[in-house]
């Protein structure tokens, strides 16, 4: 077991808003920071490490540290898109193990819905791949579409099977009063929704929402003095995958590499996991991660997700019991934070009773950032209840 296995998540907060036209971006960061620290029973003066993505306003963490009134000795702005917050948790655990900080605060906020802001990359032709890709109109949805088309071709995956992922998320979202899409949907309704980019329908896509979330990761010494249940970070992995100089292989994602690291570090197997938060920008994102993380054989994801196998209380692997990005929340077009938060809820026994996994002791959270059809970053955490 590695040294970082000792760090604990003691605070987690998901902003209840899904549309924040009346709040600034910095304000959302402060509100989620306050929420997570109050959840932990800590104050902002306890924070000595701060983590945010590169969309947080200001140069790196500097403006946010100023705005929040923090005095820190460790900062990290690692950005892999929507998976960044899983890397932040891992990096916080590493920093704590190295003695660089004791109380790490991680914040995410975004308001793309109010700002009418797309999830597409800002065009910058100093980015070396852009001159060779941007003329062709790559978007988030059509590059994930490339993955789904290839998966269907190689493994016989069907749109019906992908639709089951949305169905499962919607079954969970009906119990979440904050979820954007609370109405359960059927496979037929997913297939009847408009085709956005082949083979992904509108209901294969996640929501666009404002809001955010925050986490507090602390040393075991700090965790011991707190009243809230602590969630130990017992394994983590991160990986980047890309078109490899023209050796494109869309059959798997970086989660295959990150997952192996996380499972090896934690010393557990996929079959030990009782609850999984799986990044769900699109249905295909979930399916490929499930295969890559080893929950089923490569190519068997379609059969694995069908017939409600991801529905809590029904299937073998309850996933995204908050409704996920597909139905609940995808704040700032970045869904990794809410993946960790729901895993923490499950391990604390604080998920909605209708979706709470009984005696949940071991959970996994998987993030997928960027474009799975080209360059993307995966972060995987394995989390354990302490008592």
């Amino acid at each position, binding site marked *: 077991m590695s040294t970082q296995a000792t760090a604990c998540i003691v605070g987690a907060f998901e902003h209840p808003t899904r549309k924040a036209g009346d709040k600034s971006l910095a304000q959302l960061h402060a509100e989620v920071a306050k929420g997570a620290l109050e959840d932990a029973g800590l104050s902002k003066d306890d924070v000595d490490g701060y983590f945010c993505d590169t969309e947080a306003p200001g140069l790196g963490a500097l403006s946010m540290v100023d705005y929040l009134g923090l005095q820190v000795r460790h900062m990290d702005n690692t950005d892999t898109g929507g998976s960044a917050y899983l890397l932040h948790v891992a990096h916080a655990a590493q920093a704590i193990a190295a003695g660089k900080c004791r109380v790490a605060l991680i914040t995410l906020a975004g308001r793309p819905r109010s700002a009418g802001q797309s999830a597409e990359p800002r065009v910058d*032709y*100093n980015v*070396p*791949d*852009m*001159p*060779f*890709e*941007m*003329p*062709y*109109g*790559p*978007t988030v*949805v*059509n*590059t994930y*579409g*490339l*993955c*789904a*088309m*290839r998966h269907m*071709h190689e493994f016989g995956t069907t749109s019906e099977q992908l639709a089951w992922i949305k169905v499962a998320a919607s079954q969970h979202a009906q119990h979440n009063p904050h979820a954007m899409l609370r109405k359960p949907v059927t496979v037929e309704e997913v297939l009847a929704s*408009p*085709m*956005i*980019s*082949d*083979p*992904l329908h509108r209901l294969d896509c996640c929501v666009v929402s404002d809001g955010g979330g925050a986490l507090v990761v602390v040393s075991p010494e700090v965790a011991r003095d707190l009243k809230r249940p602590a969630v130990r970070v017992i394994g983590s992995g991160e990986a980047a995958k890309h*078109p*490899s*100089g*023209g*050796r*494109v292989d*869309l059959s798997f994602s970086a989660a295959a590499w990150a997952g192996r690291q996380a499972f090896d570090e934690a010393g557990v197997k996929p079959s030990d996991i009782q609850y999984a938060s799986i990044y769900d920008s699109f249905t295909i994102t979930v399916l490929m991660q499930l295969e890559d993380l080893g929950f089923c054989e490569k190519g068997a994801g379609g059969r694995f997700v069908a017939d409600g196998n991801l529905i809590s209380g029904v299937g073998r692997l309850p996933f995204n019991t908050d409704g996920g990005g597909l139905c609940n929340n995808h704040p700032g077009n970045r869904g990794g934070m809410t993946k960790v938060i729901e895993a923490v809820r499950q391990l604390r026994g604080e998920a909605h009773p209708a979706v709470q996994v009984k005696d949940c002791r071991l959970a996994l959270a998987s993030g997928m950032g960027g474009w799975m*059809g*080209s360059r993307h970053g995966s972060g995987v955490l394995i989390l354990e209840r302490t008592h």
Partner: protein
Amino acid sequence: MSTERVLPCPEINVENQAYWNAAAESRLLVKHCADCGHNHFYPRAICPHCFSDQTQWRESSGTGTIYSFSVMRRVAHPYAIAYIALDDGVTIMSNIVDCDLDALAIGQRVKVAFRPSDGPLMIPVFVPA
């Protein structure tokens, strides 16, 4: 049938200038490494396979097969984005144009063509072979 989508003109730099000069002459270039012997794409000065600086421009056959594609439907001018597995051993992102968007298939043979952008550059795209 054919896409009416405007191809945005990228900005170019000294590292990729030759590629775009060739495109203006209806030639598709890839980079070849004299040290490791492999082609790569998109083109770099330093080989991403072996880190040699002995990279050379090579003219592609311009033929290949569709590795994957997706037709963007909810836009004014639907278009097909695709990865093309070139016969030269590299897979590249492009559009498939002048085709029936509903008849595309993975494994279909395609060949390069060149279309004007909204700026000075010509853009390599693919059409059914």
